[in-house]
């Protein structure tokens, strides 16, 4: 997969005086900061430093991390080229929107915070289940296809989903789904993103993950070791789709308005760009790719609209250009398949 010489995973990390950062420490730090941050922005404290716009950016980054890390499971670890991730996201987004507006509005009678959290948890759970189901079916369909064929099938699936939603009047059709309550905030997104990273990290270090990597490395040898390729692939698709659905559910209840067009292959391409920018088969790469890309796009938006407002859309021309440049100059992405130390498995674990 990688053309880079890789560091030997065993070399004991050089002893430094600093205490070693562990995964749970990073999680605890982010969780401890998230709630005060959200509350002080809501209360309008320090409007110069804690701008709602910055918090919005962080929320977007969190949702994108869920999307990119779950796609990494398919494109990085399993070594397939899936092109339909926004389709899974659409399934999750519409399921969550439907649950939140049509099925669960009665829960609004509950005390405010508990009611919102309840609706959020149930709608996100529903979104994950629905897209996991669709992912399972896609896994079945792509049973024996690899490479180009799998890419085309998943691309076709993405188009089917978008076109189907466009023709369902019940969910707004091409006009989009309006009036979704804003049940999400930065805290919810942060919790979901950390949960995603934690689950994926553990999966990848388990025998599940080894099986996926072995299929990428040598599918024939993997089968000769007793790995059922069809079943392992199906699991990967189901899990990746579930998390894409989670991101979709969060997205719908954050933007409060979704249209089918926002989940077409352009969205898939955006997720791919972030994934390849960061580096394949590396969760650190997924996080770094998302942060770098999102910040770059926002900077470009501000920079370009400072010259002329109509120039702002030209940043969409720059993102494919970034993909081309990565492929020409640094195919392994920013991080290759290396992990930051706090995301790596503990030796002997």
């Amino acid at each position, binding site marked *: 997969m990688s053309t880079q010489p*890789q560091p030997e995973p065993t070399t004991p990390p050089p002893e430094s005086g600093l205490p070693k950062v562990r995964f749970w420490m990073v999680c605890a730090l982010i969780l401890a900061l998230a709630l005060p941050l959200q509350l002080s922005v809501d209360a309008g404290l320090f409007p110069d430093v804690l701008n709602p716009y910055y918090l919005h950016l962080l929320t977007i980054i969190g949702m994108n991390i869920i999307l990119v890390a779950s796609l990494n499971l398919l494109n990085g670890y399993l070594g397939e080229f899936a092109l339909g991730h926004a389709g899974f996201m659409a399934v999750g987004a519409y399921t969550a929107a439907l649950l939140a507006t049509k099925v669960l509005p009665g829960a609004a009678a509950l005390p405010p915070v508990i009611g919102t959290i309840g609706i959020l948890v149930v709608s996100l759970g529903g979104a994950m289940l629905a897209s996991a189901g669709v992912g399972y079916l896609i896994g079945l369909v792509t049973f024996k296809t690899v490479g180009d064929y799998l890419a085309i099938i998943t691309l076709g699936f993405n188009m089917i989903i978008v076109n189907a939603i466009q023709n369902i009047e019940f969910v707004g059709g091409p006009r989009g789904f309006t009036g979704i309550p804003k049940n999400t905030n930065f805290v919810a997104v942060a919790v979901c993103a950390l949960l995603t990273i934690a689950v994926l990290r553990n999966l990848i270090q388990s025998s599940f993950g080894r099986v996926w*990597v072995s299929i990428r*490395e*040598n599918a*024939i040898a993997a089968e000769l*070791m*007793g790995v059922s390729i069809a079943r392992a692939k199906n699991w990967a698709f189901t899990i990746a789709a579930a998390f894409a659905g989670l991101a979709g559910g969060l997205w719908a209840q954050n933007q409060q308005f979704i249209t089918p067009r926002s989940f077409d292959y352009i969205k898939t391409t955006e997720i791919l760009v972030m994934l390849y920018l960061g580096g394949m088969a590396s969760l650190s790469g997924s996080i770094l790719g998302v942060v770098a890309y999102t910040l770059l796009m926002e900077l470009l938006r501000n920079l370009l609209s400072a010259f002329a407002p109509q120039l702002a859309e030209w940043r969409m021309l720059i993102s494919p250009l970034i993909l081309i440049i990565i492929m020409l100059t640094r195919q392994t992405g920013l991080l290759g398949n290396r992990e930051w130390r706090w995301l790596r498995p503990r030796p002997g674990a």
Partner: protein
Amino acid sequence: MTLLRVENLAVSYGAIKALHGIDLTIEEGEIVSLLGANGAGKSTTLRAISRMLPLQGGDIFYRDQSIKHIPAHTLVAMGIGHVPEGRGIFPNLTVQENLALAAWTQKNKQRLAASYEKVFALFPRLAERLPQLGGTLSGGEQQMLAVGRALMTDCKLMLLDEPSMGLSPLLVKEVFRALQAINAQGMTILLVEQNAHMALKIAHRGYVLENGRMVLEGPAAELAKDPRVKEAYLGT
């Protein structure tokens, strides 16, 4: 007891017939060599037995049970291990992970530990290289890893495809000694080899394939003396 019986096995790649109905039997505890020139159908035979290729005709019996319709990955749990041509190790996984992956089917912790011990006793070099990436091993070590990986699956019948490929004569001897040791512990081996001299030395019986047909079979010592084998594969 007959461990494996191949009856009238025919395989083709598209319109090209690779095997025209061959017969082969392997008794428990034997080393059987399958000899033949390039393109004779040796690897095809192994791949057909481990169900990586669809059969066109004939049948394969493992412990008197037909395995014609059994998918490749479930054969591993039944006890057939296949060391593919070119070793097929996972280059970006460590030696430890390569072995752990092979134990995928093994749920019993005690037997798993025993399997590790067996592999390390046989190939102490692998124990030294546990944290190293598979792709950074030498050719001989990769072959040891491939054999070790098959051992980890706790197989009863090992199919070996050209274990001497690309190895120095010294390493070939080492690998073959290991195969004899494995056999002495009760493993049945079907060995496909270009190196007919070495293969017949350790085998009990042998078969010779030519253009997809079995042309000779017999005890290894007799085959080694057979003028046709001598001329075609051993040099005189």
